[in-house]
């Protein structure tokens, strides 16, 4: 088990939905869902057409499960999860949470409390803000920082980490979210949507647990090229 401390977490979050996109994560998904369910009532796991039994394990661990019949990519999975969650009665707070166990529960709680102040629509986790000690490997850090600087939207919003999987947002954002980039370019698209819809955004320092498992599942750095390319072409597409 990872170092998750549930001691100081006693607030129930009946209106929060945690969205966990997962693709072939049978090895870890059980623990991740069970940890989440320890704090949150509502967790939806989007199985992105896994070939292993990710879906069944997630269901047994207490998550709602929606399953893509084919593999579509993380962006599509997040969109599916948000569409499922926003149709549930009482859902007000939405959280995207990576399935590989790289996020910490207490970061989620801090971010939900930040959103609850009501002055922002979306809170995005950042590895690179202020005082948090970042354990990001140097090369990855350089590439992510460059990606954040190259993206005109991130720049405008003063965001330091465009590709953090941890996001907390309200119903306004959930209702209007329409991700069209199925693959890994959705993070940039998310930021673009924030600019286009004038959602108020804040960053919250979070820590990423770079376990050997999450490192092996993480996106190859070369994928950054695809992300930049998709970003340029996005405007050309009819939607």
């Amino acid at each position, binding site marked *: 088990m990872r170092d998750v401390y549930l001691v100081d977490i006693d607030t129930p979050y009946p209106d929060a939905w945690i969205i966990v996109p997962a693709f072939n994560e049978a090895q870890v998904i059980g623990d991740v869902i069970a940890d989440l369910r320890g704090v949150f009532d509502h967790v939806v796991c*989007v199985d992105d057409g896994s070939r292993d039994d990710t*879906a069944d394990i997630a*269901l*047994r661990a*207490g*998550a*709602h*499960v*929606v*399953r*893509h*019949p*084919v593999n*579509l990519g993380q962006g*599509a999975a997040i*969109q*599916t999860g948000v*569409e*499922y969650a926003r149709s549930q009665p009482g859902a007000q707070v939405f959280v995207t949470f990576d399935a590989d166990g790289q996020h910490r529960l207490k970061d989620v709680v801090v971010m939900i409390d930040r959103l609850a102040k009501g002055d922002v629509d979306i809170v995005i986790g950042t590895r690179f803000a202020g005082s948090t000690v970042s354990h990001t490997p140097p090369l990855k850090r350089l590439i992510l920082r460059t990606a954040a600087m190259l993206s005109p939207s991130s720049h405008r919003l003063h965001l330091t980490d465009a590709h953090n999987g941890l996001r907390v947002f309200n119903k306004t954002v959930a209702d209007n979210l329409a991700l*069209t980039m*199925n693959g890994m370019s959705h993070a940039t698209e998310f930021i673009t949507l924030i600019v286009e819809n004038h959602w108020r955004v804040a960053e919250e320092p979070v820590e990423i647990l770079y376990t050997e498992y999450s490192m092996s599942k993480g996106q190859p750095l070369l994928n950054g090229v695809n992300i930049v390319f998709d970003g340029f*072409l996005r405007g*050309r*597409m*009819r*939607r």
Partner: protein
Amino acid sequence: MNWIQVLLIAAVIALLVYLLRSRTNAKAKAWVKVGYVLFVVLAIYAILRPDDTTVLANWLGVRRGADLITYALIIAFVFTTLSTYLRFKELELKYARLARAVALEGARTPDH
């Protein structure tokens, strides 16, 4: 007439016949067919009188007609590639929406 001219004209006419016979979404693609007929007419003209393309090329500051055609080909190729890419992206999006509808239809809820 050279053999190459015979072969090229035969190929272009075969393509024209093939295109006009295909009945897929007839109305929507009508302008594509008009454009194609125009292309065939120009192609046959260029095959029969290749030196005229050089005249046109010279007007545009290119030395040989063959070079001009190469440039046009490159532009057309890039255009086709890009529009195919965008078309694929569009299809991908529709495909994702279909899969999403299927997924949401079959949602499972935990017992506890």
